[in-house]
């Protein structure tokens, strides 16, 4: 009902706008923008809005309108702080107009009414949105409705330190062939453990540094579940899916890595700064991360020759049903529900303009993310960037994404607690899987398929 009344109002306003003479009346609009998980290289996530505001103001001027957009831009590198700030401010009616967050928030925030569908405000058929990859638009949708505009794309590769591979007997040609071998399932997670052990035995890396995974919870760990054939959601019903065998394989892999001494038992919780400096300086043999790590390694960590030192591939498969894979975790521009309809409309136009290829390429190249639109590949800044090109070629076609499902957060928590308990030796794999299954079926009931 609210929606109908709003529509009536909008039609009236639109009719008045199109028929009346366009008197230049100054319009002041304040738009606040907040981006989570954004480090120093990611400033174009919000700076793109500044560029867009400049465009929009000029466009308005051509139509005889004086539009003054006052922007309040904020970023934080933390996800926890960001989500707390957004959620709690929204609960008190003070949400930022535009939030830049992971797509997995869409389901919950749409259900709570915190965000509104972007498709209510922008023309999906018009450029630049028509140029955005369809699969990214799907990732930004919930129940067939487009709630957000993709802000970036990425993939999460597996990394090898070339010299350490050479030290355990790999020739340069064999190292170069790793991406193909991994994709074909010839080099698997068991090989990872073997080679990690060899590196430690050869003394090229210290104990616990053979395989040096991500130090905190994150989407990355779902990749190892997928490596053993697991699916996060059932493609037919859209329900969440716990594949016991795949989850066991995934937990067992980390339990084996700890038992073999190639990963430290207390690895989770290692400070990020320490981890980045170690992997970028060859202290670890094999690890995994994201495409944006390229920016961090080569800039802040001072790794001059990335390609000469590091090989990157898909996450290797494991077990019989295994498959090599990677995960893309696009950030999205979302519009929050506001009292002021006009502010929401302006915010929508801003994110639409910010999604233009030329503007998005600035972020993609600066932060080593992947582009969101087809034509970005033809923009020289992007096309001439070796990392963007190779990472797109090698990884993006194999990338899956987490489901937009409001129960996924619960599933994720339980999966992570189970992994932690196995990793730190508090539970056996069997015990952890039994507990995960018990907890999921008691909390989610029919909303999750367990098989």
């Amino acid at each position, binding site marked *: 009902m609210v929606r109908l009344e709003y529509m009536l109002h909008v039609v009236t306003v639109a009719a008045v706008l199109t028929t009346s003479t366009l008197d230049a009346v100054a319009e002041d609009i304040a738009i606040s923008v907040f981006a989570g998980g954004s480090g120093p290289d990611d400033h174009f996530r919000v700076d793109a809005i500044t560029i867009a505001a400049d465009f929009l103001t000029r466009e308005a001027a051509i139509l005889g309108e004086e539009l003054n957009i006052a922007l309040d831009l904020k970023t934080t590198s933390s996800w926890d702080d960001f989500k707390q700030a957004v959620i709690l401010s929204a609960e008190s009616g003070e949400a930022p107009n535009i939030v830049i967050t992971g797509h*997995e928030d869409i389901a*919950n925030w749409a259900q*709570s009414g915190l965000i509104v569908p972007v498709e209510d405000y922008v023309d999906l*058929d018009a450029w630049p949105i028509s140029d955005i990859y369809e699969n990214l638009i799907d990732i930004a949708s919930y129940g067939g409705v487009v709630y957000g505009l993709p802000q970036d794309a990425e993939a999460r590769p597996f990394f090898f330190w070339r010299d350490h591979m050479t030290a355990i007997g790999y020739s340069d040609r064999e190292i170069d062939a790793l991406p193909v071998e991994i994709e074909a399932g010839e080099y698997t997670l068991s090989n990872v453990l073997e080679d990690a052990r060899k590196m430690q035995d050869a003394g090229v890396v210290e104990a616990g540094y053979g395989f040096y995974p991500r130090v905190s919870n*994150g989407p990355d760990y779902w990749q190892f579940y997928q490596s053993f054939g697991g699916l996060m959601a059932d493609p037919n019903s859209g329900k969440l899916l716990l594949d016991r065998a795949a989850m066991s394989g995934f937990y067992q892999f980390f339990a084996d890595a700890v038992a073999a001494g190639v990963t430290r038992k207390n690895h989770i*919780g290692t400070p990020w700064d320490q981890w980045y400096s170690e992997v970028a300086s060859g202290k670890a043999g094999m690890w995994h991360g994201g495409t944006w790590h390229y920016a961090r390694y080569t800039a802040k960590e001072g790794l001059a020759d990335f390609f000469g030192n590091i090989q990157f591939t898909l996450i290797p498969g494991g077990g019989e049903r295994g498959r090599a894979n990677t995960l893309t975790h696009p950030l999205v521009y979302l519009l929050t529900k506001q009292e002021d309809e006009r502010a929401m409309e302006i915010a929508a136009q801003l994110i639409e303009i910010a999604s233009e290829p030329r503007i998005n390429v600035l972020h993609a190249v600066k932060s080593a993310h992947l582009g969101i639109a087809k034509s970005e590949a033809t923009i020289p800044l992007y096309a001439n960037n070796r990392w963007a090109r190779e990472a797109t070629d090698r990884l993006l076609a194999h990338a899956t994404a987490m489901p937009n499902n*409001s129960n996924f957060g619960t599933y994720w928590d339980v999966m992570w607690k189970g992994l932690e308990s196995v990793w730190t030796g508090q539970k056996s794999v069997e015990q952890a899987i039994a507990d995960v299954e018990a*907890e999921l079926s008691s909390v989610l009931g029919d909303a999750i398929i367990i098989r």
Partner: protein
Amino acid sequence: MSSSRTLGLLLLMPALILVVLFFLVPVILTGVFSFTNMSTSTGITGGAYQVTPNSLQRLSDDYGLSSVAETLGQSRYVVDEQSLARLQQGEADEDVIAELRKDHLGQTFETRRAAERMIKELRHRPSSTRAIKAISGMMSRSIAHVRFDTKQALAAGLSEAGIELTPEETTAVAQATYTGWVWTMANFRRLFSSPDTQRVLINTAIYVSITLVLFNTTFAMVLAIATFYMPEAPAGIFRSIWLLPRISPPVIYVLMWKWLAWDTGFLSLFLENFGVPSRNWMLESTLNAWVFVILINGFVGASMGMIIFSSAIKAIPKQLFYASEVDGASRWQQIRHVILPQLRWPILFITSYQTLSLMTSFDLILLSTDGGPGATTEVWALATYHTALSNYAGNFQYGLGAAMALILVVMGVFLSLIYLRFFNYSTLVSKPLIEH
């Protein structure tokens, strides 16, 4: 008498109001929240009625209404007299309405996108995206993703979209599409059945008991007694130094510990001189993490006990010390037979206060280990915080977090009662015999 009582009450009123607002109300709200499934996705202040993929799933699974779910999930955009009347009512461009009636009456589109494509091909195409959206919105005959504030609005929306349901089906749809929170005991069931509950409780017991016994009471007492027997000036300096952890901002205080413990920190650099490889001492092992968690909290906690015990010792009549010295008592005998018996009341206070304080404090652990490595130093209060205010997929579990907080309140009250009994509280507060 009665006027002074009223005055007293009046004077107390601001404090009473503050106590009610900031102490009582939060506890009551925690109690209320704990019996709900409240989360970010349900919102705090109440929900709406919205057809989402989840609600459709519920409609099929829980109510066996899969055909209704299928209908509700479909989107349909229709050019009919009803839509045109709405457009008229909304004062849309007459030419657009006329053209729609002439060329498109009776057409149905499955998606909004398709409907808008048609609108954009009109000869009298509206000049803004906003106007196109408004027209396609008027053509909608679906309720998927529309938010209805009330049940009545939902029912009206259903009938407007031409979806005819029996009263039972309408009720089921209302229940399944409700996005807000509902009353439930599920939080407590989950806590009592989860294997993590036991682990976190054991962590909490370890943390509270060791910090309390080693630092907050024993070490505080050692400091108080040591400074009591020192000359006044150095004692003051010594006490001030031990106050530093308490008066430093927690973030800076913990950062200093991290500088000490990091692999590039002071400890590693110093020990490298003796051939010990550098490492992250704080997170090296579970034992290391516990040692640091207890030291970090203990150093802060000890200062509180030190102040209370010091002042209590100073309040002991000097004659008792003179008399004991005349009797030839050693320092140890003085402590054992003069000081400690006089400190029963402050010891009770510090023990119970610090137990409650430790049970509910998690800030220093959050800043130092964040419960790691691998949740091995996750205590109840921190787990509560993580549940209620942290979730990777943006769905904070307020209800479950409140249930955990409520359990903490119950444990606190229970322990306080035990302490009161153990220290024989009634004797402590009874009137001195000499004044009878």
